[in-house]
C-alpha cells in the first residue's frame, strides 16, 4: 500500500460537485475569442463558442475573501493532499455538441481518481476530475477530464 494515500484521502474519490448552470452569451464568446487570438469569424462574431470556451464559463466565481494570497480559489471538491506543489497537468476533452449564445449549460464535476507514482525526486500524487457539461435537455455537450500532479 502506498505511503501518501490514506483511507480518508481515498474516500474522497467519487465526490461530486453541485451542478453549476450558466448561460452562454455572445459577449462572453467574443471576449474569449479575442483573448485567445482566434482567427475564426464565427467565434470572433460570437455566433458560436470556440472549443475550450467552457473553461471560462465554469471557472469558479468566489468572493474576494475566498481567494488565497496568491490569487487562487480553493477547489472544494478536493481533499487536503499531503503534497502541495502543483505541477503541469493534462486535459482530455471530448466534444459532442456545438455551443451557441443563449444556450444554458450545466456542469457537474466528479473527483474520479487519486493515485500515487514514483517520480525522479520523490513520490507524486495524481488526481483526476471529470466535468460533464449537459444542455437543458440533458444531452452531453462536453466531457473534460483534468489530470493534476502534486509533488
Amino acid at each position, binding site marked *: 500500500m502506498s505511503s501518501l494515500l490514506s483511507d480518508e484521502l481515498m474516500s474522497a474519490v467519487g465526490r461530486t460537485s453541485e451542478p453549476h448552470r450558466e448561460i452562454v452569451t455572445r459577449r*462572453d464568446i467574443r*471576449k*474569449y475569442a*479575442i*483573448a*485567445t*487570438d*482566434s*482567427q*475564426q469569424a464565427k467565434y470572433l462574431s460570437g455566433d458560436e463558442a*470556440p*472549443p*475550450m470556451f467552457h*473553461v*471560462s464559463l465554469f*471557472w*469558479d*466565481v468566489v468572493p474576494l475573501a475566498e*481567494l488565497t494570497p*496568491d*490569487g*487562487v480559489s480553493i477547489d472544494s471538491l478536493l481533499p487536503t493532499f499531503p503534497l502541495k506543489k502543483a505541477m*503541469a*497537468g*493534462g*486535459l*482530455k*476533452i*471530448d*466534444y459532442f455538441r456545438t455551443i451557441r449564445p443563449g444556450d444554458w449549460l450545466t456542469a457537474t464535476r466528479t473527483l474520479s481518481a487519486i493515485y500515487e507514482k514514483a517520480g525522479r525526486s520523490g513520490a507524486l500524487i495524481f488526481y483526476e476530475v471529470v466535468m460533464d457539461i449537459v444542455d437543458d435537455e440533458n444531452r452531453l455537450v462536453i466531457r473534460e477530464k483534468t*489530470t493534476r500532479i502534486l509533488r
Partner: protein
Amino acid sequence: MPTAHTALQLDQLKVGESLPQRTFTPDNKQLFLYNAVLWNAHRIHFDHPYAIDVEEYPGLVIAGPLLGDWMHQCIEQWLGSSGRLTSIEYSNRSASYIGESLTSGGVITQIDKANRQVTLEVFITNEQGDIIAPGIATAELT
C-alpha cells in the same frame, strides 16, 4: 498544403502531412484579457514582482490553458468547414513566459477512411524548438 479556405479531401490526405504552423507572441495585454475572461486572479500571470520574487519564476507565466486553445486553433484552421474536432488530449509539460514566442503545429498520424476520422499529433514549441505541450486529437471529416 491545404488551408482553411480549401475543402479537405479525405482521399488526398496523407499520414505524415503537416498542419500549417502559427507563431504567437502573447503580451501583457493578451495575458491580462485571457485571465480576465476566465476570472483567474492567479498573481503569477499579472503581478511581475510577485511572480519573480515570491514564486521565483523568470517572468510572468503564460496561462497553461491558452496553449490548449492554440492547439485547437491549429486543428480548426486546417479543418476549416471540412469537419469537426471531436476530441483532444494534451499536457502542459513546462512553463513559458511573456516575451517568448510559441509555435503551434501538428501532423497527421492516422487516417481511418471508413469512419472518416483523422488522428493528429499536435504541439506547442518554444523558441528552442522544445515541445512544451504535446497533444493528440481526433477530427471527423464531413
